[in-house]
């Protein structure tokens, strides 16, 4: 189990597989470079991301704002119910605008940033701890949790679980902030075991209620927007949690959970599934959990062994994972060396494809895998390809209204103040294709397959694409863009 892939099997295809899974894919030049480095150095360029500076500045609102909280509180206190509603609506509009900015901020880190593997781990933890803005309602808290995932992306399991438990967004999301003796709220206590660390069958209902009692006191200071321990909330009685008895507290709960053998099994299975695209066999799962344990529950050594292993490059794994919507979008930008569309458009794209960042459907996160694909989401992918590759003309006024979150004026169908349109999306074919590839149709078909797919098109598909190009006569850029879109409108482009 987990034997290293022999260096002589390292080539363009394995390098592409690594880049697709441990990152978001890339153009042929990047893959060629990874292939030439050999497996260890190639892996290091992704995993040892600390060597690359990531100068992305935080959004300017990403800090606690006690004065602002207090101001809103005071204003609400003295307001009539109507005025109060207006105040909160105004505040929500501000938060939504920031959320949109945050989504763009993160998507661009994934699409353009120097540390794709770190961002891929942030995306994993976001899906794992599945916290939603819909209940948290603060862009600052969502950003803060995102930064926590970035800081501990490949860090220590117990440290991560503890920080997540004390994270403001999580304290709100699973009601821990409100939990107090004598009627502890069980939400976080249950989900931390069921969904974050152990899985059903490795704890009892009694552990849920006792764990909830022990966790009381972990709370949120809503004025200073930070974690706070409230001794008055804490249940000081004796509890028995996962076999340990005493006046346990939240830290004891997390430590006890991580000490369960089921915990390493649970999280390594989930990591393997995320990167390999299918659950590990029992034997492999045991081996992965052992590696995590041998390395003091630190993730980076485990991940290095995982990505270096023969199992990871097994033919049953390669090219057999559905791209998540975010992977699809960000990967397209990387592979075609183009920019993402404006944030307000990206937001709609990922929402329609069912991966609304910072708003997972529930605390279990996204199911992933083939659940990404339905008749609806597949057609959405095909049509979004048109937007990204061929581009669309969008009224400027509408784009601006979206940015300002002026939903009401939009919904009322007000005529746009101006008729001016902005061209959004569209790929620069001159940048990614040589003059020969742009004129010679068979070379074009070959170049597009090489860049966009890890596999070849089926004969019938290649023929259909050839027929399309032949019918166009002498090719112009629009024809080439249409051909790129067609390659993206295949089942093959949806997998990696």
């Amino acid at each position: 189990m987990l034997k290293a892939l022999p260096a002589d099997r390292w080539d363009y295809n394995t390098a592409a597989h690594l880049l697709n899974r441990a990152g978001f894919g890339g153009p042929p030049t990047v893959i060629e470079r990874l292939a030439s480095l050999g497996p260890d150095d190639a892996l290091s360029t992704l995993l040892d991301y600390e060597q690359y500076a990531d100068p992305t500045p935080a959004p300017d609102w990403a800090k606690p704002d006690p004065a602002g909280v207090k101001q809103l509180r005071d204003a609400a206190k003295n307001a009539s119910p109507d005025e109060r509603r207006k105040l909160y609506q105004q505040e929500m509009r501000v938060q939504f605008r920031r959320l949109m900015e945050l989504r763009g901020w993160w998507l661009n880190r994934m699409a353009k940033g120097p540390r794709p593997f770190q961002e891929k781990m942030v995306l994993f933890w976001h899906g794992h701890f599945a916290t939603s803005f819909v209940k948290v309602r603060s862009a600052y808290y969502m950003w803060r949790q995102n930064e926590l995932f970035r800081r501990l992306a490949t860090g220590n399991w117990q440290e991560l679980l503890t920080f997540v438990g004390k994270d403001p967004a999580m304290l709100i999301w699973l009601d821990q902030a409100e939990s107090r003796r004598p009627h502890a709220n069980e939400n976080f206590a249950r989900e931390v075991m069921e969904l974050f660390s152990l899985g059903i069958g490795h704890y009892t209902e009694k552990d849920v209620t006792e764990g909830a009692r022990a966790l009381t006191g972990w709370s949120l200071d809503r004025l200073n927007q930070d974690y706070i321990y409230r001794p008055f909330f804490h249940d000081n009685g004796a509890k028995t949690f996962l076999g340990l008895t005493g006046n346990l507290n939240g830290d004891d709960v997390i430590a006890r959970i991580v000490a369960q053998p089921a915990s390493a099994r649970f999280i390594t299975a989930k990591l393997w599934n995320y990167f390999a695209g299918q659950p590990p066999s029992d034997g492999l799962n045991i081996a992965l959990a052992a590696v995590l344990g041998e390395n003091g529950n630190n993730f980076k050594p485990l991940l290095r062994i995982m990505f270096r292993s023969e199992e990871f490059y097994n033919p049953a794994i390669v090219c057999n994972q559905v791209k998540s919507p975010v992977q699809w979008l960000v990967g397209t930008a990387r592979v075609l060396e183009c920019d993402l569309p404006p944030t307000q458009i990206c937001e709609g794209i990922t929402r329609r494809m069912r991966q609304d960042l910072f708003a997972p459907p529930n605390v279990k996160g996204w199911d992933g895998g083939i659940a990404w694909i339905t008749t609806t989401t597949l057609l959405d992918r095909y049509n979004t390809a048109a937007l990204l590759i061929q581009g669309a003309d969008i009224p400027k006024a509408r784009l601006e209204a979206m940015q300002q979150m002026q939903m009401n004026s939009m919904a009322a169908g007000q005529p746009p103040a101006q008729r001016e349109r902005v061209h959004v999306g569209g790929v620069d074919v001159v940048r990614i294709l040589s003059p020969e590839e742009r004129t010679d149709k068979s070379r074009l078909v070959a170049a597009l397959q090489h860049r966009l797919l890890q596999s070849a098109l089926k004969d019938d598909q290649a023929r259909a694409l050839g027929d399309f190009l032949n019918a166009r006569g002498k090719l112009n850029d629009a024809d080439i863009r249409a051909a790129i879109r067609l390659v993206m409108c295949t089942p093959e482009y949806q997998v990696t």
Partner: protein
Amino acid sequence: MKNEITLQTRRQFLRTTVLGSALSWTVPAFLADTFAALHSEAADSATQIATGKDATILVVLQMAGGNDGINTVVPYTNDYYRKARPKLGLTPQQVLNLNGEIGLHRALTGFKDLYDDGHLAVVQGVGYPNPNRSHFRSTEIWQTASDSDQVEKYGWLGRYFDNACPGCDPTVGVDIGGQTPQSFFAQTPTGISLANPQSYRFMSPGRFKPGQVDLLEESYEKMNEMPDDAPDANSGGSIGALASGMPQPGGSVLHFIERTALDAQVSSEKIRAIVARVKNQAPYPATKLGGDLKLIAQLIAGGLPTRVYYVSQGGYDTHVNQAGTQDRLLKELGDAVNAFVGDLKAQGNLQRVLVVTFSEFGRRVAENANGGTDHGAAAPLFVIGDKVKAGLLGRYPSLAPQDLFEGDIQYTVDFRSIYAGVLESWLQVKSAPVLGRQFEPLQLV
């Protein structure tokens, strides 16, 4: 002439939906704006009047999150109820009385009307042995109709499709919302998923007239044909669930997508034609659920050969400050279903349609310290239709502390006997092959 009328309608439809509603926020709506309007004529010429079918239709309505059944169908005269719910308890003035002991939550006026008209049955105390309090596990149990200690791969509706509808049109099962429900998971994946019918198509910027071929779209169709060497339907891309609902393909991922691509192609034309042609016959509330049911009513009126529609309403996980949230959700539910029934009645299709609701569990009898309730067990569900056995079915579980199990009421009706009743008397198939064994079918109609 006929063609001209549909053309007008379609243009109007495009105008209102693209510019005048929240749909204008979606990317394909931009594309619709850019591309689709250019060749709406072509799409209209393809519009055909689909033939209606006479078969019965089931609409499954999921109330996701675990609805508090005790405050939905309220035992408002019960002392134990008032004791367990000092803050959340509803007074006689806050319920819509059904029989002097039990009343509907005051927000369910839409359901009360249906009840009075003989269109609504309340099945009390529905659950299953050894209830699980995890959202995801309990949802999985409901979706797959398994015992609580068994993991079943396929969904109960998926097994119905496998058993009763081999080789059916993919639209035999339609999920509104874009996410295949676990109950549809099947040996042979059947069913489509639909969110916005307007963008349920391959959009092409080609400017073309009726009769002219759009080369791009034609090429797309060819590039999405099933390869000849694809495994046949029964060995190919089945969908099954792992424990906790993570779907797994039976064959390769690629085969599964190829199949879905074909289903999308086949169903897209038909659905767009119906939506462009058929008008709803009753007003709907402007809610998400209202919109979803409105679309279902259109598809029913348009004669889509669908046997099962699936629609979901979320937000019932009320651990904190339950009162306001549940009020809003139940109002949305009752009003939307009431409008749906009115529409079907006006269409003359009500006698063909049965709506069954479910939620993964009810909630704890005692309220918690946060004005909410925690995960519980049994709860009532609703069956709505023209000829349902209207009234209160089954028995309300005892709320007496000695009768509770870990703080929860105990079920009196196994949900699978409701499924058995639906399968046998409504969908007219034997239930044992679908449910794995014979459950006593509950008489619903």
